[in-house]
């Protein structure tokens, strides 16, 4: 099995981008990544692409801009796994190269929420459950019950239930969620590509925002951004051949275990998941990814993490599932500032998904940001400590898919 590294990264500015269309946005990211890698488009042999097509209203959009990204004559493989699509795309690209089929590939994931009529990614998110909702209405769901279900909002939805269940199990307080959200906005202010920037955001600022449904505040909710991110992956031999002068970020291990739906199955059938915050899939993915990366003690061997947390409780919850803190104790680390950009174990120095959420792109951004940190190219949001091993995580689906990617500055440990 070959060793694979990320040799170039490119992203667009995320936010509300009404100045470009999907094709231009994606090509912006792809070309920036290729330039950053120091190669030419003729060196790229295959593409891994993904986005959630329902949001932008184009079915299989990569067909429309295959020329924009230089894909003519090359294989393009597409994935769509919900929030983690970016993570899945990065892993697909890893498999493309590690399998020996291709030497150099480009992975790109994107989302253009502003193209949809309703703000806040509502249509696309509602469609996850639309089939179930239609059936429930047919069976006589009344508007009061529906309105009660909708209290948490389409965007927060199950995540609000998860936030409540995590709090119940871990004993943290809503202040901890405020702390994490404030950290995200502060870090995002240092990241030129991020969406919601707030340089001096304090937990009290978040606490002042409107309470949607306790424990979910408006200040906890991520924005719906437009954006694209792309990375170039290459095999060991290709790196020798192409000789990019800059440092690279090696991918040591990947895993993506899927759990049952967290809330309800097809047609409102029950699922065997008792706890939204149990995230067995994440624990299994993390264990497998560490095993493949030959990491035996994540707490000692991993330097930082980019966790997919559109809502602050998820940063706490997943940092425990990924093995960085004991169950139910992540909130203590936040209190002590351990997860700050200059702390012992920085989490989401880029501001994370809480500050920038272009659903397709955000999963890939986690891998990209880890790579930037390892290559010391994160500019203003570079963490001060040396990053030898970084972990990128993304979740998707009905909070059931989890992709875990382990990156390092060296090809093997």
């Amino acid at each position, binding site marked *: 099995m070959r060793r694979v590294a990320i040799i170039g990264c490119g992203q667009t500015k995320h936010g509300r981008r009404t100045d470009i269309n999907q094709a231009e946005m994606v090509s912006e990211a792809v070309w920036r990544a290729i330039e950053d890698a120091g190669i030419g488009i003729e060196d790229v042999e295959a593409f891994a692409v993904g986005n959630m097509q329902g949001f932008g209203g*184009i079915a299989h959009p990569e067909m429309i801009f295959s020329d924009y990204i230089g894909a003519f004559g090359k294989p393009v493989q597409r994935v*769509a*796994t*919900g929030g983690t699509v970016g993570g899945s795309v990065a892993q697909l690209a890893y498999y493309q190269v590690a*399998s020996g089929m291709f030497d150099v590939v480009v992975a790109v994931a994107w989302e253009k929420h502003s193209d949809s009529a309703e703000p806040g990614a509502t249509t*696309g998110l509602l469609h996850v459950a639309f089939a179930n909702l239609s059936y429930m209405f047919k069976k006589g769901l009344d508007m009061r019950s529906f309105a009660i279900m909708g209290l948490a909002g389409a965007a927060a939805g199950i995540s609000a239930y998860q936030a409540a269940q995590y709090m119940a199990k871990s004993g943290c307080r809503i202040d901890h969620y405020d702390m994490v959200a404030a950290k995200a906005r502060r870090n995002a202010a240092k990241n030129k590509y991020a969406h919601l920037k707030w340089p001096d955001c304090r937990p009290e600022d978040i606490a002042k925002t409107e309470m949607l449904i306790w424990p979910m505040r408006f200040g906890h909710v991520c924005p719906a951004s437009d954006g694209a991110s792309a990375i170039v992956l290459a095999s060991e031999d290709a790196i020798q051949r192409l000789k990019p002068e800059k440092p690279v970020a090696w991918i040591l291990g990947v895993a993506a*275990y899927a759990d049952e739906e967290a809330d309800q199955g097809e047609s409102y059938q029950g699922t065997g998941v008792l706890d939204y915050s149990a995230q067995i899939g994440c624990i299994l993915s993390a264990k497998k990814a560490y095993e493949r990366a030959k990491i035996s003690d994540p707490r000692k061997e991993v330097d930082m993490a980019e966790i997919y947390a559109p809502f602050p409780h998820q940063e706490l919850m997943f940092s425990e599932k990924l093995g960085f803190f004991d169950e139910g104790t992540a909130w203590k680390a936040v209190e002590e500032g351990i997860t700050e950009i200059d702390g012992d174990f920085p989490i989401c120095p880029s501001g994370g998904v809480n500050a920038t959420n272009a659903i397709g792109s955000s999963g890939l951004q986690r891998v990209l940001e880890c790579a930037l940190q390892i290559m010391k190219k994160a500019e203003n949001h570079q963490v001060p400590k040396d990053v030898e091993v970084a972990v990128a995580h993304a979740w998707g*689906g009905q909070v059931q898919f989890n992709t875990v990617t382990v990156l390092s500055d060296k090809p093997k440990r």
Partner: protein
Amino acid sequence: MKIGIVGFYALPQTYDVEMTREKSVFAAAKGALKDAGLEREDIDTVVSASSDFYDGRTISSSMLIGASGAYLKDESKAEEDGLFAVLYAIQRLRTYHRTALVVAHTHSWTFNPHKVSTFMLDPLFDRQNELLNDVTLAALQANTYMHSYRVSEEDIALAALKNLENASRNPLAFRRITGITLDEILDSEIYSTPIRELTMAPCCDGAAAVVLAREDVIEDLSLDAVWIEGVGAATDSYIRDRDLLEMNSLGIAAKKAYEMSGINNPLDEIDFAEVNERFAYQELMIYEALKLCQKGRGKYLIRSGITERDGDFPVNISGGSMGGDSIIANGLYRLIEAAKLIKRGFGEKALVHSQWGLLAQKNIVFVLRGE
């Protein structure tokens, strides 16, 4: 590291609004495992294929995790023709995993598949005129092809006739018309000149699954395998930006597959083929792209009878897409039909093709070999 197909199962193609997708996917996955003689515990990774737009659900695979056998397994999905999921599974098998299950499905009654094609169009120009969809685009390409190479309607109808005759004998096919005649085809309803009812594929329901394994596992467990010798995939430019006279990306994909499997003369070295021809005229263009004949000479190949079921190079013994187009599952049906024939000893090497996108923008080709 060679990869082999060790089990497969395809449900009979149908149009059944009473069948839930959970039931179809479960039946396909269970059937393929049974055929391989393996249990769910023996599978290392699952790659499913389904499309959000066709299923009407965002993240269409999320509620099928249990039914596709992917519970607490390392899994992913491909959002296009099932053969791309097979490609992804092969890439996974060549790294960490030893066995893989690939499941694909589409129920065409959920949403009119032809409507989805309008959403594949660029929203800035092509979608605005409301004239274009996959059928009218096919008419455009068919007319271009027919005029440039003097191909007649009858030449195209002969390809449809061959496939419909073959389909009438295939229990898995959807459209089975016994005693179909050329006149019936040429008299069938016009959708968009020259595309007729019987020269285009009928959209239907389908669910299929295959189990793949690495050669060391196949040896250890003494499994029967159909080997995957070569694979090639390529993407073309968008419809407006390319020459519609040939299937460029199929030519590139086939070349890659031939190189990988050491084939120099496909007509001689391969025994038969299963191709995805969403419109009958496409079969002629596919012959040319696969280098079975020169450009524009597809009509001679069809008239020669070489591609009939009793010819020297049978194409679409299963009836191809003329017998039924289950969209995402289509490629897997072609793969399974070819694997079945190889196991029966019908031939030693087979070519399997599928397409995706408007006017076959993406193409993928596999070369299979029996033991």
